[in-house]
């Protein structure tokens, strides 16, 4: 899509805002609609858009495969680790009350951390699945459609 000037310019403008919006959805999820699942998908969608316009190779450079192998398990580990932390602090598994000095503060902290874990895994899995599919076809030419 090298000659699609309008698509390239518009997507270059849009991508930073999509990423920013994903972060807003991620960390504002307990006040408005959204959360880790939605934020992860939106974050991944920014990379998918980048790959569609500028090519999968460029996207792989922006988000190397080695990151995926780390980030996919990391999110689950953050989530499960929060549960372990609450166990070690004397609560039950995933009981966030004990994570901070007040139960409410602990709940806020716990929700924020586990949502972050969800977001990390969802982002990485979505990008990994997209790369796995997109990496198997050669560049699609416009007249293929």
């Amino acid at each position: 899509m090298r000659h699609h000037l309008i698509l390239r310019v518009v997507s270059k403008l849009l991508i930073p805002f999509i990423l920013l919006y994903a972060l807003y959805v991620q960390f504002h999820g307990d006040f408005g609609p959204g959360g880790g699942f939605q934020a992860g998908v939106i974050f991944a969608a920014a990379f998918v858009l980048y790959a569609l316009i500028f090519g999968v190779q460029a996207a792989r450079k922006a988000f190397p495969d080695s990151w995926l192998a780390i980030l996919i398990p990391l999110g689950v580990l953050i989530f499960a680790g929060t549960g372990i932390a609450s166990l070690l602090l004397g609560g039950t598994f995933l009981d966030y009350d004990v994570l901070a000095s007040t139960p409410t503060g602990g709940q806020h902290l716990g929700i924020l951390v586990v949502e972050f874990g969800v977001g990390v895994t969802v982002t990485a899995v979505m990008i990994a699945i997209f790369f796995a599919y997109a990496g198997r076809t050669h560049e699609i030419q416009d007249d293929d459609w």
Partner: protein
Amino acid sequence: MESGIVNILVDISLMTLLGITAIGIVRSRNLFATAMLSGIYSLISAAVFVTLDAVDVAFTEAAVGAGISTVLMLGAMTLTRRSEKHAIKLHIGPLFVTIGIGAALIYGTVDMPPFGSTDAPGFQHIVPEYIAGSRDDIQVPNIVTSILASYRGFDTLGETAVIFAAGIGVLFLLGRRREDEEADESSNSGKGEDA
């Protein structure tokens, strides 16, 4: 009263669009059109969820259904042919099963409590506790988040593990690129992709 009529009109037009899109998906033999129509179907569903005040679900539907899965369908389509091989053939048996199940489901909705009714059985059991707890104990304005991440944290951990397993599975099956492609890429890598 005014807003009630507007709501009904919005519902009717959204449902009509859903129906038209579904018929389009069934009738189209062109896989590109089918993939795009599925995305449109998801987007209209998201609008329906918004009218039902389920913004979190609408959000997910728009991002996953209309966004990522459309792209994945298109990606999968490029690996195969662009149009369905077989012509439309009417199968009587499946048609009757579908109509029967559809009729039973519609018959079932007759007994359902009206939309938004607080007397609905779903709101009697544990939901009042969750609502009071979200307000007093957790103090998070979005009850969906407090249920998802705190009350049902264990379920959500399971869901995250499912996504993790799906990602690992796809990486194992499709992630490794074939050797000849990697050779292709190393010879092309000097070209550069700077825009």
